[in-house]
């Protein structure tokens, strides 16, 4: 199983990425998906995501390999956007495919939980008032990561 990992500015296509995980094969029993979206909290006008080219892709690939070691996946895809993202747009797409639903659903949850604390991305919020601020890491995210052991 070779994970698909992409860090890109462009939006992603859920339908196309999902189809790619079962194209030409008949052993895939389920595909779980998670999409993180940009919310317009507190008058937010845009999110600007910074990353560490090279390290970010490698970190995500390693997390995907960790998932593949824990669950019998037939495929997995992680696409994370960087740059300026508007409310309503997707930020991150995680797909996990397996013969059975439990592995797909658990691996998908694991992937997004580990990605939040283990891949170098930083979010800056831009507001309609012209102000901006860096998003702070949340202890809850770290706790969820620890929960997977």
């Amino acid at each position, binding site marked *: 199983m070779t994970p698909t990992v992409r860090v890109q500015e462009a939006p992603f296509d859920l339908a196309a990425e999902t189809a790619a995980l079962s194209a030409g094969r008949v052993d895939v029993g389920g595909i779980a998906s998670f999409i993180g979206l940009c919310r317009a909290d507190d008058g937010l006008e845009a999110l600007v995501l910074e990353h560490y080219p090279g390290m970010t892709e490698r970190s995500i690939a390693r997390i995907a390999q960790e998932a593949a070691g824990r669950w019998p996946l037939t495929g997995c895809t992680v696409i994370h956007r960087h740059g300026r993202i508007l409310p309503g747009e997707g*930020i991150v797409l995680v797909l996990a495919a397996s013969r059975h639903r439990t592995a797909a659903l658990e691996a998908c949850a694991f992937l997004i939980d580990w990605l*939040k604390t283990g*891949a170098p991305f*930083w979010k800056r919020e831009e507001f309609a008032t012209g102000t901006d601020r*860096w998003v702070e*890491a949340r202890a809850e995210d770290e706790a969820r990561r620890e929960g997977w052991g």
Partner: protein
Amino acid sequence: MRVLYFAWLRQRAGTGEESVSPPPEVRDVGALMRWLAARSPGHASAFADPAQVRAAVNQEFCGPDHPVKPGDEVAFFPPVTGG
């Protein structure tokens, strides 16, 4: 040694990347942070709260005790907030 800064550390340091040659007694990440902090008021501001600074050496997350040597790529950044 190549030093990279991301997010608010980049803004405070006033640069995203610089090439530095610290003295030989700067042997680990913590010592490098203290040495870099003395470079300018901006650097001092970037490293003012070490508890809010994370690091990577050669693109691997690491703690303040991790060794550094000439030729390394050392990055400093806040706790990550992707996803």
